[in-house]
Every structure is written in C-alpha cells, then in structure tokens.
C-alpha cells in the first residue's frame, strides 16, 4: 500500500526524508539558541562539531548496511579493537601507518561479517551480534589494559583544528559527502540500495549481490575502524572496553533520518540530519542541566516523537 502522505519531490527525486530531518534540526537549533545563552557560543559550537564525529562515522557505515536490509551490531566492538590496535602499533610503527592498520582491521571485520551474511545467508542481526561478542573479546586479547601512546603526535588527529573546525569533523564531513556521492552516483552505491529493495531482482539483473553486500559491511567496518582510531586519538588513550552500545546511537541516527530497517530506503544527507538531531538533543539536555537519568528518559521520548513526526 502506498501511504498517501504529501511528499516533497524535486526534479523527480523525493526529498521528503531530507526535508523532515532539516526541519527537526532547524527546530532544535532555534529552540536551543533562544533558550540557552551558551548554545551559540563558539566554544559550544566547536563542541558540537566534535561531538558528532563518532556517531556520524558509525551512522554512515550503518546506513550503507541498513540500505542492503542488514544491520551491523558489531561496530562498537570494532571501535574498541581498532583503537587499541592502532595505539598498540604506534609504539613500533609510524603513527599514520598504525592508524591505517587500525582502519584496515575494521575493514577485515566488515569483510568477515559480510561474507557470513552474503555467502552463507545468515541473518545479519545474529552474525553481527556474535561478532560483537567475539571482537570485543579480541580487543581484550590484544591488550587487557589500556594503551596510552607515548608519542604526543598520536593525539594530533583528534585535536587538530582547521580554523574553527576540528580536523576530525572535516574527516567525517568528507565521509558523508563522498558517501553521498557513492550512494547516489555510482553503480555500486545504486546496487546496494537496490539490493535492499529486492535482492532477487538485482541478482537477476546480473549484478553480483554477494559482492555488494560484502562491500556494504566492509564500508561499515571501515567507518567503525576510522571511528575507533579517531576516538583513541581524541581521548588520548585506547581502552579495550570502549564503544559498548555505540551501535544503538548509529542505528537511531539512521532511523531518525528516515532510513527503513527493511532496506532500500535512506540517504546520506538525511542520516546526517539524524546525527545532528541526536547530538543536539544531548547538547541541549546538557546545557539545560537536565539530570543524567532524566536525560535518558527524555532522549527515548524525543526519538519516539521524531519518528512519529516523520511517519505523518
């Protein structure tokens, strides 16, 4: 059945999801700006820019997987593993190399997830639930104790600013921009979306479905790896225990951005809107000094309201 909702269609493309995301973001910004003195201060804005990075990176990777109709619950564990790996390797290797290896490890985990899903037809939820457990264990196997890289250059990535903008925010922005182009303008991106809509059709069109599903998980792994490295650099220490439940915010961002968990529907732009909504909610609740447990109560309620609005 087609829902008879008014939709925003421009030049034959549907921008409803983007429009709703934008509207919610604007609403939150206006509320924040008028009710809090602090919100628009440069310091707070820089904060916001930094705070969106982890969720942002994970959310883009998650979106790609969700588009195929899958899910990647393992990202939080991948963050932990790749961060501690990069920190550990930085003792012996040049820092950029160590960090690259971290990201590559993320890709490797993604490839394994993807292969189990695509090659053996296992349910993504269970595969990545199992790998969430295994990869978390591996992070501890690699190092039971936190690793603090001694070279201060390890902190560079996480603390560098380009003018008023943190480097890591720029990196995330590039991921979203390049990712947006990937999804909307490349055959691989389109195939990934189509697979989520109807994998059998895509297969019959002679497109290698397995390869693209594996690619999607690899992208999620890469994003999680990048997030792990960035996080370690930003915090200045890598702990095997970080990243628990990170997948939940990433998934929430996608859904707030209108992505369908059944696949085939979702955009980078709107997901970025979802990330902004989450970050703004956190920031606002902090600025208002809402007590931590009430923050949780409200956060859940706000998510429900946002998806109710989106549904209308």
């Amino acid at each position, binding site marked *: 059945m087609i829902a008879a909702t008014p939709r925003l269609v421009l030049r034959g493309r549907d921008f409803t999801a983007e429009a709703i995301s934008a509207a919610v973001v604007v609403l939150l910004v206006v509320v924040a700006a008028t009710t809090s003195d*602090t919100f628009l*201060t440069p*310091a*707070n804005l*820089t*904060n916001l820019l*930094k*705070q969106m*990075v*982890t969720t942002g990176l994970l959310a883009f990777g998650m979106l790609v997987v969700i588009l195929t109709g899958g899910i990647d619950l393992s990202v939080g564990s991948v963050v932990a593993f790749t961060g501690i790996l990069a920190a550990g390797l930085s003792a012996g290797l040049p820092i950029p190399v160590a960090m690259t290896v971290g990201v590559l490890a993320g890709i490797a985990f993604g490839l394994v997830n993807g292969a189990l899903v695509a090659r053996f037809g296992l349910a993504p939820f269970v595969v990545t639930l199992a790998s969430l457990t295994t990869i978390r264990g591996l992070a*501890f196997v690699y*190092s*039971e*104790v*936190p690793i*603090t890289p001694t070279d201060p250059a390890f*902190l560079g990535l*996480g*603390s560098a600013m380009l003018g008023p903008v943190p480097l890591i925010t720029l990196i995330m922005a590039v991921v979203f921009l390049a990712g947006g182009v990937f999804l909307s303008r490349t055959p691989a991106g389109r195939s990934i979306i189509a697979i989520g809509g109807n994998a059998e059709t895509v297969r019959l069109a002679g497109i290698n479905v397995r390869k693209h599903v594996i690619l999607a998980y690899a992208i999620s792994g890469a994003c999680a790896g990048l997030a792990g490295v960035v*996080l370690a*650099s*930003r*915090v*200045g*220490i890598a*702990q*095997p*225990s*970080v*990243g*628990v*439940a*990170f997948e939940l915010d990433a998934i929430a961002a996608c859904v707030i951005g209108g992505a369908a968990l059944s696949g085939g529907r979702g955009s980078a732009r709107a997901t970025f809107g979802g990330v902004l909504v989450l970050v703004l909610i*956190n*920031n606002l609740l*902090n*600025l208002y*000094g809402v*007590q*931590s*447990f009430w*923050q*949780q109560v409200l956060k859940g309620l706000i998510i429900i309201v946002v998806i109710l609005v989106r549904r209308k």
Partner: protein
Amino acid sequence: GQDDGTQTIGVANFLLSGPYFSGMDKAIAAQAKKKGKIQIISTDANGDAAKLAANIEDLLSKNVDAIIISGGPLESAPAALNAIKQAGKPVVLVDRKFAVGEYTSWIGPDNKAIGVQDGQFLAKRLTDGGKVGIIKGGPADNSIGLARTEGLKSVLGTTQGITLVEAPDFGNWSSDGGLSVMESLLAQHGDLKAVFCENDAMCLGAQRAIADAGKAEQIVLAGVDGQNEALKAIQDGTNYVVTGLNDADQIGSMGLDRAVEILSGAKVEKDTVVPSPMVTKDNAAQYYDPNGTF
C-alpha cells in the same frame, strides 16, 4: 565565578549508573550545598569516553570554575585533561587516578592496600588454611580491580595452606553478577573457605549464592567499598566478615572541598590517599549510616 561570588563546579562522571558513582556524585552535590555559594553542574558520559570528553567540553564552554572527574572504570582521558589545562581550569580527580595526563589534584583510595588488608584479615581468620575464591569486577582492563586483587594475592599467595581460585568470568561490579559468578565457582569448588570480591556489590550477590547453597557456615566473605548493605551485613554478624572502607561519601565531599580550596588560591597536596580502614563486626557500627548515599 559569578558576580555574587558564587562559583560553579562541573562534575564529569564517566558512568553514573553504579551505586558507588551516583553516591559520589551526590556526596559532591551535598557538600557543595553545605558550603553554600557553589553551583554544581553534573554530567554523565554513560560509559562513553568520547562523551566524557564532550561533556567536559560542554562544561568548559559554560565556563565553570573547576572540574571534578569521577572516572570510574576509565583509565585516563589525556585529551580531556589537555582541554581543561588549556582552558586554565583546575581539575580534581576523585576515586579514579588517571594513569596519564596532567591533573591538579587527586583524592582516592590505595586499592592495592585495601586488597592487602583483606588478605591479611583472611590469612589470620583461616587458621587451617583452605581455598579462597576471587571474584573480579572486570573488564580485564580495570586497573582498580586489578590492584585490589593483586594486593590480596600478594598476601594470600604466600600464605601457607591457602590456595587461590579465580573465577574465570567477571561479576561486572554488580550484585547479580556476583551471584552468578559465585554459583559457578561453588559448583566447582564446594570446599571454599572464603571469597574475596573486588567490591561489596558483588560480595552481596555472592553471599546470596552461598546462603542458597547452604554454605553460610563454611564460607566467609571479604569485600571492598563499605556499601551500606555490606556494612549492615558485617555489623549483623553474618558470614560477611570484612570490607575495606572506600567511602564514596567521604571521597566525594573531600573532592569538593579540594576544588574549593584550589579556587581560593590555596596550595594543596597533589595526591591524597584516603585511608581505607578495615571494617569488621567490631567497628562496623561506627561506619554504618543508614541514611548515607552509598
């Protein structure tokens, strides 16, 4: 500071959702109220290191005068410490001393010493020797717990007639975790004489498992923290026989005092180890405060 002389102190909790940590947070707030003219802004990173950094950034952008960090299981946050330093604000660590990075002052327990103390008590108590179980909080990177267990082992590991058995899985610092780890431990080692837990919450769960197995007469418990329920159990003369006081109330209020002192320009001690007296049936009444926050 504000015009009326009110000072604002930000509290950055890494993980508020444990009784020890929320007790600490409350103690800080209570002490601030007692002092007057101090406004507290408390934040919770819910176990996310990046969020802790973000919360500290939020606090700095609200221009707090000082920051207290209750880092819980977090080993360190060098970048956040850098940010505070750059902003020229003092930072007081409570409970958790960060392994790396610069801070103004730390107030907390000597975790190894608490383990040693429990170990000594048990060594004396188990005159005939026997098996002692160890329940760890986890995860494996939690150096607070490691220090406590290390302290215990440093004593009991060399005591004649005592064998140590470490539960392979973690109790997650919670009572339900302590319960199920104890159950597994008992299945394999029904002949335990004592159990050490890295904190009281786990010991309280373990005590239940021991009672259910009908071994309350056989096995005694040693914990850490001085959580109200544990103090009561010790006072009541149960098989919960000892804990090392690691009082969140005390550390929290001292932390607040320390921050205020620093703001007033006083020269303060960098690291303050809060003594952790041994609590047994004999002195439990002295520490048990049914209305305390922890």
